[in-house]
């Protein structure tokens, strides 16, 4: 069995405790406007193109069966996304790595081989393996197989999820997961639908069910000015935190624009207006101060 993975990040220190390796699953059922990992949205392998790296050798043009690649006056590659089927024929001939396929099908053993190279660091720091994405629950069999393998190696396992999945899929993973990093994006169901393409009803139901089942939970909340960064949403986060006895804490993830530059490599344009700015330090502090005042345990 293989899983479709778009990155294996070592020395990952923001996705759970300690030093971790994060496995990024490709494919996500949500379409969050502010997505910071846009290469994780599609479940299909995608062609990333970085024109700056092109050395004008022309090999890709010969390799492309769809005539999606051509050369400009300087001899450098030009990609016609309308013709490109992301078949991947060009990437292997591009030594300059201007053309790269994002999304590889890896076996559990292949992922574990990388993850285990850092096991001493996990042991010393209380770290381990984190499944993220994309949405790991969108490849439930592979997620389960990987978690089983990691548990056999006694690695601490975390899963970062949007919670948008069928409950039985979550339930199956319950005994395999040490920590759930559960994304909570918007309280108002209508707004949730418009921001992410789906309502939050199932997400909330799964969250409560996980909590009832005794899962260790961390709530991770992206905070996007002009979108979900509103008082009523913060108040609802505080209320949720009080309601869920197994919740270990809340982490606010302030909006940033690092995902924007990635979009260009995939030929997408941003759905976020340029006018939306990352929140400044004072604003972030005021959110955290509010949650603290409501007795919420914060992770920063």
């Amino acid at each position, binding site marked *: 069995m293989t899983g479709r993975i778009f990155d294996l990040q070592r020395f990952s*220190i923001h996705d759970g405790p300690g030093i971790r390796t994060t496995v990024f699953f490709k494919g996500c059922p949500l379409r969050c406007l502010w997505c910071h990992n846009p290469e994780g949205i599609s479940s299909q392998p995608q062609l990333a193109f970085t024109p700056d790296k092109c050395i004008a050798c022309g090999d890709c043009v010969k390799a492309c069966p769809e005539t999606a690649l051509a050369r400009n006056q300087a001899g450098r590659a030009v990609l016609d996304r309308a013709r490109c089927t992301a078949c991947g024929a060009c990437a292997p001939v591009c030594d300059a790595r201007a053309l790269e396929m994002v999304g590889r099908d890896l076996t559990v053993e292949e992922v574990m081989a990388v993850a285990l190279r850092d096991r001493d660091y996990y042991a010393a720091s209380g770290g381990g393996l984190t499944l993220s994405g994309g949405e790991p629950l969108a490849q439930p069999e592979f997620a389960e197989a990987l978690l089983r393998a990691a548990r056999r190696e006694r690695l601490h396992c975390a899963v970062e999820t949007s919670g948008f999945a069928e409950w039985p899929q979550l339930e199956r993973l319950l005994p395999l997961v040490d920590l759930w990093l559960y994304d909570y994006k918007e309280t108002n169901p209508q707004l949730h639908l418009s921001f992410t393409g789906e309502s939050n009803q199932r997400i909330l139901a799964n969250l409560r069910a996980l909590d009832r089942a005794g899962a260790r939970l961390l709530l991770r909340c992206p905070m996007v000015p002009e979108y979900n960064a509103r008082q009523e949403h913060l108040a609802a986060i505080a209320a949720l935190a009080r309601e869920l006895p197994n919740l270990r804490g809340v982490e606010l993830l302030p909006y940033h624009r690092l995902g924007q530059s990635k979009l260009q490599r995939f030929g997408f344009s941003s759905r976020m207006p340029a006018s939306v700015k990352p929140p400044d330090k004072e604003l972030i502090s005021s959110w955290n101060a509010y949650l603290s005042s409501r007795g919420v345990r914060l992770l920063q």
Partner: protein
Amino acid sequence: MRRAPALSRRGFLGALGAAPALAAPATPSTETIAALRRDILSSPVAVALHRARVFTGIFQAHGREPWILRKALALREYFRTVPLYLRAGDRLAGSISETPGAMPVLVELGIAENNIYTGENPNRRGYLRGQVSAEIRDWWRDRNLWGLYRAANPRAAIPPSRALPESTQYKFISNQGHLSPSYAELLRLGLGGLLTATRARRAGERDREKLAFLTAAEQALAGLSEWIRRYAEFLADSREMSRIAAKVATEPPATFREALQLLWLAHQAIHIEGHGYSCTPDHIDQLLLPYYLADKKTGTLSDAEALALCENFVLKMYDNTVWGPEHHLTQGLCVGGSTPDGRDLSNPLSRLFLEAATNLSLPEPLVWIRWHPNIDQQFFDYCLSRISRGTCFPLMWNDKVVPAGLIQLGVAREDAYNYIAVGCNELAIPGQFYFNPGAHANYLRSLELALTSGRGYRADTKAKPLAPPVPELKTFEQFTAAFGAYLRDSIRTSYATEMTLLDAQMKWGQTPLTSCFFEGCLERARDLAQGTKYNILSCGGIFFANAVDSLAAIRQVVYQNKEAALDDVAAACAANFKGHERLRAKLLAAPKHGNDDPRLDDLIELVERLRDQPMKEICRDPRDGTRFGNTHVVRSSAVRTGRVTPATPDGRPAGTPLAGSVAASVGAERSGPTALLNSVAKLNAPRSWQTGYQVNLRFQGAMLSNPANREKVRALLNVYFQKGGQQLQINAIDTEILRAAQKNPEAYRDLVVRIAGFSEFFVNLTPDMQEDLIARAAHM
């Protein structure tokens, strides 16, 4: 004589005190220390000539005496006559020259006129030219170490080594250096006690050479004592300083301040005697601990007072280090460590010295700690927290690895655990073993010769080829054998050259005073240069990562994928990849060291072996036949040598920086710090890097300033050292801050960064060195 332009130690920064520092402001513990720091930093860079005049006069008057005696007589005369001064607020007597900020010219070794001052910054080279009178310069021309060496070795080119020019050049402006004198006996017996013991030895000696040495040692010690006594008179207005000077001129110290003062005076005297390139004053936190504890017990010393004295000591070291803008002395200060049975040696003084040094935000002394498995983790956390303050200190060695390497070279276990950091990133044992390069393995030139049938890219060598020509290198093993043959030759020829330098050091580079602090010198009545307890020379080999990456690229592109021939690779390198962009992309796509890639494991071992094997066969210490150690000392040459090094088969363009660390080539690090450190741990340090390598790691500032992140970094480093990493040096400054410092240097003038073998104010670096640092991957 030309007047020195008014250039301050702040380098070319212009007006002082104009703008407040925005990043990494120094935080001296008292206003007096802050004022002293400002005073030292704003001193003009200048030359002091008293030493040159005295040495010239004595050497002229005593032409028939042995060299070592002339040196000692001149040193004593200098101590008797040098005009004394004390900077305002300075509570430790003892200065390098007669004028604040001015550095003496060591005429009996070499003179700046010879244009042999080396420099990190080419724009500032030769600044001291024209400062020494023609009369003095001309008299020494054929009479000092450099002149005599030249006469004895008419065919030796200066510098003998193209790849590592400063390693040989420093030997003509400095005595040996790279050493740490042992001060335990000095503190125990006092100067008077040492002098008595030396006299007693001399009394029964009949052998002429031994008598010359012992007489010289006695003269030097007597001079030191006289110098200190002169301070007692000079400082009559400052009663406590005067009392202390009068006491330690002969007696052993009893208090922390007395011990610190004596230790400084002896250390300063060693710099005056031999320039003191890369000196570290013994294990200062261990030696001074009994005095500190006794004073604390009697209530005569507070921690605030002790901190201020430690800061004062650090400032004295810095005041001693700016040898013209052209170069720093790379002085060291090393604290902590462990005993052979694993007991932690860190103590309250280790912490005070660390606090003092990092409070002052100065590029020198280089501050080191020794990690070990039982290190107090709170102390280690404290060390890491100091790195985020805008210095790169402390730098780290590993007790799990360094002693093991020294033991392999024949050092006794208890001595091996007494090792100390000296110089850029070299190793020594106080009073027992000093670092000295004795050969050099030139990886990249050897690769070039193997790729061109021995001709070089520019066909610039006429030497007979030492390996089969390129068409006969059908397999990768045949290619590496050819590479090995040229590497062996580079070791052989550099060894021969270096031995002529050692011979010159032994004849005209003696240091009778420094020798008094080395085991076996007084007992066997011979100078340090003739040998001490352990005589370990080192074979250097730099830019290891480029060598490994180049071999990996050649193996993949030429021998595995057969995408190009060796001749194509040679042509591409010769042309700096112009017209060979496609081949360069293939070379770049090969696996690169620093990413924990198992495909490189055998090549790491291979390069180590191709250097170790010939070194073992060829290199022997001529004094006692002992084995060489191996080292990787880069200092500033990763950028400077990079400028004159042709393109390399790893895809690196000509003129760009080479690898400043054994961890990875520039820009090759793509898999994060765990992968980087795992890669380094694959090097066999005890077997193949006994006398030191260096590893650079760069973080964004918040990784060490934020306690939760710092805990993760601490775990990372604990694992790295457990896995066998020998050394580590960290920069933790955000890229944005470095960019801001480039735009507005005046506001960031206290920012201290680690380059390779030295540390410097960031704003004093050349633009290409600044870029080299910024180009290192900065981990979150």
